[in-house]
């Protein structure tokens, strides 16, 4: 598996409103896009680092992403664990251009 | 037409569950001497007592092993037949 720095188009900005998160599949790979209140966009590996539970089944409120499996909580901007601390979501570089969201996905094997 | 009120049956309709079961038992306990009919439906019981139905919260509490207030009854009682009289300790359902 090799790293790439190429941005891939993930979705339209309209697909994920402020305050929402959603999972998109690009080239067979899933990515979680989080649109934080205030406008920032983040891209994450869509599973919880705890037990690989899909994060999309959890809650996203007030900048906090909560996994529904064991209620682990993460700051949606930094990706860092709030409860428990010392853990992080696996973040991918992301940007918005021309009303579309782009992210750098780990290489696809 | 079944609208003769002299022998009207009155009482609560209880959602199925712990409270509903306890209410059935309590009503049977507190209304001895009156004819009581329990009708079972898919999601509720209709409890029918001839003439008047007394429901004492203390008796329900005895059945459940915990304190019971009118709010506990209300939360599990979507309907009832008869004129209701609610007080701190009991509910009465009157036929007229």
């Amino acid at each position, binding site marked *: 598996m090799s790293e790439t720095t190429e941005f891939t188009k993930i979705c339209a900005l309209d697909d994920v409103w402020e305050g929402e998160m959603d999972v998109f599949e690009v080239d067979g790979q899933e990515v979680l896009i989080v649109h934080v209140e205030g406008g920032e966009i983040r891209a994450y590996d869509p599973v919880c680092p705890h037990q690989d539970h899909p994060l999309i089944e959890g809650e996203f409120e007030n900048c906090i992403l909560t996994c529904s499996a064991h209620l682990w909580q993460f700051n949606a901007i930094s990706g860092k664990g709030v409860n428990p601390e010392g853990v992080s979501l696996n973040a991918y570089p992301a940007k918005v251009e021309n009303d579309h969201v782009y992210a750098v996905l780990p290489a696809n094997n | 037409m079944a609208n003769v009120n002299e022998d*009207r049956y009155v009482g609560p309709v209880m959602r199925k569950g712990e409270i509903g079961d306890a209410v059935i038992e309590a009503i049977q306990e507190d209304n001895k001497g009156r004819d009581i009919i329990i009708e079972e439906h898919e999601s509720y019981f209709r409890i029918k007592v001839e003439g008047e139905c007394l429901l004492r919260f203390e008796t329900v509490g005895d059945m459940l092993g915990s304190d019971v207030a009118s709010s506990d009854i*209300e939360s599990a009682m979507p309907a009832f037949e008869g004129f209701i009289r609610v007080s701190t300790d009991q509910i009465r359902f009157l036929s007229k």
Partner: protein
Amino acid sequence: MAMLKMEDWYDLARETSWTPSYVRVDEMFPKPMSNDFDIPISEWEKFDEPYKISYREYVRMQRDKDVSAYSVKAALARSKFFENASPHWKALLALHFSTVGWSEFHSASCFARQSRFGRSPGMRNMATFGTLDEIRHGQIQIFFGYEFLKHDAVFDWCHKSSKTENWIPISLRHALDDICHTRDATTAAIMLTVGFEQSFTNLQFVALSADAAKCGDHTFATMLTSVQTDEARHAQIGEPLVRIMCANGKKEEAQKLVDIAFWRMWKQFSVLSGVGMDYYTPIEHREHSLKEFMEEWVIGQFGRSVVALGLDLPWYWDELHKDIESFHHAQQIGLYVYRALQWWRPIAGVSPDEREWLEKKYPGWNESYGKCWDVVTENIRNGDLEKTVPPVPPLVCNMCGLEVAGGVGDHWHPVNYNLELDGRRYHFCSSVCKWIFEEEPERYKGHTSIIDRVLDGTVPPGPDGLFEYMGQSEAERGVDGYDYEWIDGYNVIREAAE
């Protein structure tokens, strides 16, 4: 000393009436808002709440009720119940949530009228709980309906239908505005709580809940009964009011209010609950037919309580018995054949098995309504879909706003009860709707039905004019919920026969 019991202090909380001196009593309780029926205030103040509760207990209890109801929803949110539900049940949910949520929210205003203009403090206090309850019922149902939006845009109508000029909201607003929102506090309290809540809400919130439980829709079932636990409490406002009126020689007036309100709500519920129970609920999950539920809850329970209260059964009780067997069957045909006028995806509900069930529950159905469905079915089998939609708009009742359908026997018998007033002809579906109009023509005569609006040019002309007027984009016009695949059942029978 421990906390006082409610009985120890509650009487003080209903000694709150005073004699105004800076304004006149008739200014503080003006007639359009507060009719005392010429009964002295001392009589109204005898109002004794049958169902007493304190604010303190209320907020505790209601908090707990919501925790239960919302937690059932949260627990089942991932169960994919909705995705796996049949088009039958989806049609029922759409019909329920897009009509009941906002109209319950409106009832908050009706109770507020009772709190402001009611003549007795006990009534004003009970009605305050009613106002809060109805805010709850609006909000919880809209919230639960919202959940489905991400699966199906039909549910947008939970939020938007109230303000549209679609014929169904017009019909529903007309009924509720008539009994709740355009009446004085006493009248509205009797019409809403006795004529409506003590009778029909049980159908939709307890009886339907049994169907929902059988369907495995526990979120819906729990929410329905939770709502009805509030209704069962605040609906008791009517009992002392009717007793006070009867004791003061106003039985006839009270009787008329109950008779009008009951009929108006029967028409609404015969469609909502009747079509919902007898056509939209999958047959394997039906607890009872509408007729059976009506016999239990309305003819039986409500009928007995009206008589025990000192009133008579409504004068049209025999008419009601006939209507229970017919009205919603006729409306169902209308809902299906004019399906584009609905925002949801109507269900025919007449597969061979379903027809067998209908015949069993309503003997003679096959020979009457069944014959209409024979024609519809035959056209679909032949691929003549356009023939299943009538070329002319239906005749609509100027009272209930529903189709003038009439009875069906060997032939279709649409009896059009009508009358002329000030050069305008009014049509009614029944002698009772006509009677209500004649009791007080001023209230009703200036209103136009959806069809009147087509004829008088209010609705823009052209094939899309009516849809534009009703707020329905092309994607929001109802189509057969099964894309006609229910017809396969008949094809199998035909093939077997051949």
